[in-house]
């Protein structure tokens, strides 16, 4: 009923201005420790390098498709850092950098986009759901899983990533409502990168901000500058804590920007100006954090991060340049727990074809 406590801040939470200086627009949010910020920095460097590498690999045909995270590293890294090992992450196709930040191996992350299999990692072990393509559907899974954890008395939170466009889908609405009614420990984290493929946010929603949807479900909500890693981490830390303490779900919207095209297959020049992109390149989250950290981050540390990222990129290349062994017979393995008679017959057919 406390209407005010459900509305987001009137303007996006910020700790750091665009030029890297301190901005005091963060209400009661506590600033993350320098160590945490440095950890974020390291992962953002790694993530960006990974992203560049993956994009390059599409040009060489080693990846079928790649939706870049460029410009959204603050959001994706913070999403991973805000979670503990036993928490669950529900990512979309866009969120490969979050998976890398969560510690998944590049080969595992890229299995889907390379076209080898639908999911390259074990969700139970990693506590990362398969990267989700049918938009917004994963938000319901996150709510259900969070509720399951709550029932089992496990101290685990679920964080669902979702794009601005996908918030228009009915499933997003149903997920927010279920989560709020069941007080499930889930954080819905909208990366509003201003585009759904070619459709700008203005055509997607007439809301003052997507975070204003929270109150309609009785859910706490917040909006944050998505290119300010300090702010995103502070807000997500707080949201995850809120959820973990059993106080209910939280909706967080980060205002950010998709620097690259939707995927390598897309041509963004068809629908937006170079000027707009250039402007947002200036708002680079990585540069901003680096400036803000200033002396807290030595030149040596920066170099170490980049060196590690280069090594990581090399390992990405190595992994992707080796062809994975794929067994056509595996097609029939996990349709049901046991293959049906019909599948056994079809397997025999394919085997015979391969042996012919």
């Amino acid at each position, binding site marked *: 009923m406390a209407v005010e406590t459900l509305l987001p801040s009137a303007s996006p939470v910020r700790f750091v201005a665009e030029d890297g200086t301190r901005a005091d627009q963060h209400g009661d949010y506590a600033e993350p420790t320098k160590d945490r910020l440095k950890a974020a920095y390291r992962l953002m460097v790694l993530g960006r390098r990974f992203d560049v590498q993956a994009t390059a690999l599409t040009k060489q045909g080693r990846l079928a498709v790649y939706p870049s995270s460029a410009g959204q590293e603050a959001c994706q890294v913070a999403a991973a850092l805000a979670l503990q090992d036993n928490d669950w992450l529900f990512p979309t196709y866009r969120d490969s950098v979050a998976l890398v930040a969560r510690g998944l191996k590049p080969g595992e992350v890229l299995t889907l986009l390379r076209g080898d299999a639908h999911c390259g990692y074990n969700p*139970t072990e990693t506590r990362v759901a398969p990267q989700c393509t049918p938009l917004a559907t994963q938000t319901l899974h996150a709510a259900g899983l969070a509720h399951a954890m709550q029932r*089992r008395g496990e101290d685990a939170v679920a964080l669902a990533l979702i794009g601005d466009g996908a918030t228009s889908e009915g499933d997003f609405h149903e997920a927010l409502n279920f989560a709020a009614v069941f007080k499930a420990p889930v954080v819905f984290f909208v990366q509003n990168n201003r585009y759904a493929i070619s459709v700008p946010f203005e055509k997607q929603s007439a809301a003052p901000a997507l975070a204003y949807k929270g109150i309609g479900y009785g859910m706490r909500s917040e909006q944050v500058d998505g290119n300010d890693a300090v702010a995103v981490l502070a807000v997500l830390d707080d949201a995850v804590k809120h959820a973990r303490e059993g106080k209910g779900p939280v909706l967080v919207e980060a205002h950010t920007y998709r620097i690259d095209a939707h995927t390598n297959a897309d041509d963004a020049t068809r629908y937006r100006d170079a000027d707009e992109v250039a402007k947002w390149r200036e708002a680079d989250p990585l540069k901003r954090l680096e400036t803000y950290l200033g002396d807290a981050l030595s030149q040596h540390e920066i170099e170490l991060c980049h060196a590690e990222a280069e090594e990581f990129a090399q390992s990405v290349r190595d992994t992707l340049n080796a062809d994975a062994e794929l067994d056509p017979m595996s097609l029939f393995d996990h349709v049901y727990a046991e293959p049906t008679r019909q599948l056994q017959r079809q397997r025999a057919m394919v085997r015979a074809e391969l042996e012919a």
Partner: protein
Amino acid sequence: MTTTMAQALNAGLRDALKDDDRVLVFGEDVGTLGGVFRVTDGITADFGEDRCFDTPLAESGIVGFAVGMAMGGFRPVVEMQFDAFAYPAFEQITSHVAKLRNRTRGALSLPMVIRIPYAGGIGGVEHHCDSSEVYYTHTPGLRVVTPGTAQDAYDLLRDAIESPDPVVFLEPKARYWSGEEVTFTRSGPAMDKAVVRRTGKDVTLIAYGPMVATALETAEAATAEGWDVEVVDLRSLSPFDDETVTASVRRTGRAVVVHEAAGFGGYGAEVVARVTEQCFHQLHAPVLRVTGLDIPYPAPKLERHMLPDVDRILDTIARLQWADTPVVAGA
């Protein structure tokens, strides 16, 4: 003592809840009310709100939430209030429920049951009487079962809940109140087996769900025409039990498939196609179908014209070229 199909389902849910504390029942009105068909009657009172509860009114929400619950170790049994009201959940069912095991190469499984009261014959208004089985049977990764008897309602529901695969459990709502002696010992055939409900030597009637009773009635009526009709109850629509069905058709040499759903692209087409492929040279006549009309389900006062009945089935049996002079059906 007779048990109705609704009661048998209720008993099945209760026994499953007792045997396995991962089992949860939820959906619209399944809690305090006991469901609009009373299938969950008294369960919340007896097992607590924790095990059987109402959700907000959103079918995609219910199924998607259940997916998350199943990922988290539970075995959700969810109810869609009526056939047509499962359509909002179609994306969740098709893109997630059916595929999650496959997408994760077995790392995640979804042992969940989606109960759907389906088909007509109860004078329901529009959108309350759809026979929606094909939408599920054509979707790999789902099991689809439907009981034709109260005993099977109990047996199949227990099996479905224990299945490691997601099961779409179609309940013939017109049969909810029909009763018989039911034993709660689970001595029945496996979930994916069809059963011969009545033996006969002249023609095999293949039916499922709401039409099993109609098929048996027809078989009785057919004796007057001198036809000895065998009745097969499919029980499992997906996967299909070829063995039982083809064995029967090979014996009789003739077959008719019966269902309420619209005929065009209906489940009967699959039955005809596979039986014909497997028994072509034992068939004395093409396998025929008696199905619902290819129209939206009619208003209550006209629904009887939609539904296969004894006469329509007998008429079709009569067309099975008994005279040994091939009659060619016109285009």
